[in-house]
């Protein structure tokens, strides 16, 4: 008889910090203490608080252990599981800036989880993703059963439209409407595609859903197939997500064994099956027409729209493409009703959204919040603020396609429209936080470098336009830019937005435009004063030794990798600027604060 469950995170974050070894040790240790029959070890998907991994939760108490190591396992078994004494040393300690430290023994009480509302991530970190029975135990496949036995395809579409669900991959197109377009096309064959080609740097919510709750995606795809009259589905997932691919394969196999995929599901006469297609990691393949081209076996390049995939998609047949997070919402919407879903969120954006917090933020990880939550709540209440007492400067939403949001817009309620209005976009939900040490010109340059690399080259505005933009940005970071360049850049940005063929090119200028809009003074400092205010752009930096503070200890001279520092013992040293590579090692080494960065 099982009296306790030990949940160990098996997401990518915790796996790379050794959670499989912890699980193995836990199983061995439980067996050694004769507890194997009473305590079950469960591998789950991501809990979301990746910064604190590997994470372990012990139920029924719900004790939340963070940063567990293999050596801690024996202590947890001997004290907690055998004798009921919680190992305080490992319990997550929440120390908000300026507040007193307090231990948080239950997950639900942490600032990180308290204000979250988990719909798409509801099962991540709760069930074992490799066991279909556990998914069924939390009402899995109930929605599919209801749809196939009680509803017509038209009713399913009407329900989706009523819920107000919009695509979570970036553009925010209403899901029900997309299904309706595809359903209306009469054709012998149609397809359902799950877009799991998550490419935004810093976004990992789709991976987390696939790793933590793969059956919810399969169930939703089957429902979509029934609604539009398709019998075949493809999941397009990048090969660089090996754990997600493995769990999807297991999930598909189990669903087939149970007859939840295949012929005549629930004796309704409806057939549906799903295959996986692996992508090689090209960013452009997240664009739906490029993704379709790639599944067809060709090089991933976008096509002109129209025709839209709902009319002419995969193999020229009507096709719907939904993002992973969108799909993960669907079984819940069917089970709980469209009114439940549309009661969350804002006027135009219903439900919740998952954001991947990264960059200069204390709680790196995944958060799911109702639409309409402000950026300030996400970053400071849930995210724990900026580490090291630094000042918040900007947050980038939507990855390389999005824009940065400055401090003055921190209180904007987040939804599709409000983000667009302030020059950014929802995107897939990557949220990269920048503090006073980030140079905004360098940030724009970084994102543009990414799009230049990832541009497929099919259309000229994207292939050549983004490269010219990058060249101008490089010039500015090297102090070679002019004020005229800033205006030229803006013109070129608008030109690319209007003329590029697909969303990759159309959105590529967003990081440049938004930083120009909110941080023009930083650009001007680079151009006019030849100075990088954040001290990032190396070409504009110089290091100097302050003679009155230097004690002549020689530490910096010994550490300098290029021998640019000279001087005699107990005498002030000097840096030869022609040799200096501006690595900053001297500054880190100096104990007297004698080195100045300008």
């Amino acid at each position, binding site marked *: 008889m099982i009296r306790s469950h030990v949940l160990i995170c098996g997401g990518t974050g915790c796996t790379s910090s050794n959670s499989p070894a912890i699980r193995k040790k836990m199983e061995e240790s439980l067996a050694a203490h004769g507890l194997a029959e009473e305590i079950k070890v469960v591998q789950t998907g991501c809990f979301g608080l990746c910064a604190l991994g590997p994470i372990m939760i012990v139920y029924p108490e719900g004790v939340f252990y963070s940063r567990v190591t293999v050596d801690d396992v024996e202590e947890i078994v001997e004290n907690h599981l*055998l004798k*009921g004494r919680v190992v305080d040393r490992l319990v997550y300690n929440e120390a908000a800036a300026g507040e007193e430290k307090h231990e948080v023994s239950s997950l639900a009480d942490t600032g990180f989880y308290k204000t979250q509302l988990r719909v798409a991530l509801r099962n991540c970190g709760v069930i074992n993703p490799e066991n279909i*029975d556990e998914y069924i135990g939390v009402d899995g496949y109930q929605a599919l059963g209801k749809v196939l036995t009680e509803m017509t395809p038209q009713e399913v579409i009407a329900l989706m439209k009523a819920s107000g669900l919009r695509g979570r991959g970036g553009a925010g197109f209403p899901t029900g409407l997309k299904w309706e377009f595809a359903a209306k096309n009469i054709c012998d064959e149609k397809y359902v595609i799950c877009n799991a080609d998550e490419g935004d740097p810093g976004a990992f919510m789709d991976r987390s859903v696939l790793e933590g709750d793969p059956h919810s995606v399969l169930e939703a795809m089957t429902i979509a197939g029934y609604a539009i009259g398709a019998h075949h589905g493809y999941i397009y997932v990048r090969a660089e997500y090996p754990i997600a691919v493995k769990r999807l394969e297991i999930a598909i196999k189990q669903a087939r064994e149970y007859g939840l995929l295949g012929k005549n599901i629930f004796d309704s006469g409806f057939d549906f099956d799903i295959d996986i297609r692996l992508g090689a990691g090209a960013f452009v393949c997240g664009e739906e027409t490029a993704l379709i081209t790639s599944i067809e076996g060709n090089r991933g390049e976008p096509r002109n729209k129209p025709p839209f995939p709902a009319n002419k998609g995969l193999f020229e047949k009507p096709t719907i493409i939904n993002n992973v997070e969108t799909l993960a919402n669907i079984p819940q919407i069917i089970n709980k009703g469209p009114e439940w879903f549309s009661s969350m969120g804002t006027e135009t954006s219903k439900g919740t959204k998952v954001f991947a917090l990264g960059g200069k933020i204390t709680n790196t990880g995944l958060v799911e919040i109702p639409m309409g939550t402000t950026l300030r709540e996400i970053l400071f209440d849930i995210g724990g603020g900026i580490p090291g007492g630094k000042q918040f400067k900007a947050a980038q939403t939507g990855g390389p396609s999005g824009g940065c949001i400055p401090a003055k817009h921190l209180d904007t309620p987040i939804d599709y429209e409000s983000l667009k209005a302030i020059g950014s976009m929802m995107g897939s939900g990557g949220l990269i936080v920048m503090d006073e040490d980030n140079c905004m010109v360098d940030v724009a340059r970084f994102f543009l470098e990414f799009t230049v690399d990832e541009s497929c080259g099919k259309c000229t505005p994207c292939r050549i336009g983004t490269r010219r933009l990058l060249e101008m940005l490089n010039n500015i970071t090297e102090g070679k830019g002019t004020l005229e360049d800033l205006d030229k850049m803006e013109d070129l940005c608008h030109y690319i937005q209007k003329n590029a063929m697909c969303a990759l090119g159309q959105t590529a200028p967003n990081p440049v435009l938004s930083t120009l809009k909110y941080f023009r003074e930083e650009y001007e400092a680079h151009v006019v004063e030849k100075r990088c205010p954040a001290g990032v752009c190396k070409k504009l930096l110089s290091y100097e030794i302050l003679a009155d503070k230097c004690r002549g200890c020689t530490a910096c001279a010994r550490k300098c990798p290029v021998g640019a520092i000279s001087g005699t013992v107990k005498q002030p040293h000097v840096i030869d600027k022609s040799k200096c590579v501006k690595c900053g090692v001297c500054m880190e080494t100096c104990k007297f604060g004698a080195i100045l960065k300008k």
Partner: protein
Amino acid sequence: MKSLAELQAIRDRMKNSVALREGTGDIRIVVGMATCGIAAGARPVLNTFVEEVEKQNLVGKATVTQTGCIGMCRFEPIVEVFEEGKDRVTYVKMDSEKAKRVVAEHIKGGRPVYEYTIGEAQK
């Protein structure tokens, strides 16, 4: 699987197992599992509580957990029952048979088994 009934059967079978992770139920049964408790036989008592709670279909309602020594080692095994809005009940010198009665009469029936409580033991 060809019918919803089969799906429901799996769901019902798994429900109890997964419910354990939804946190504590309304009633908490806490078994003292320090060295003194274990030496006095707390382990079979704990296991009996877990089994009985499941057998009587009380999984969503009551949660069995353990705690350390509460300082009255001569009364071990000690079991305490906490319920929202009610006084806590402390049972002493427990064994498996007593545990079964506590689940049936107190947890399910709502009537504490006074003869096993600490008040009776100290008379």
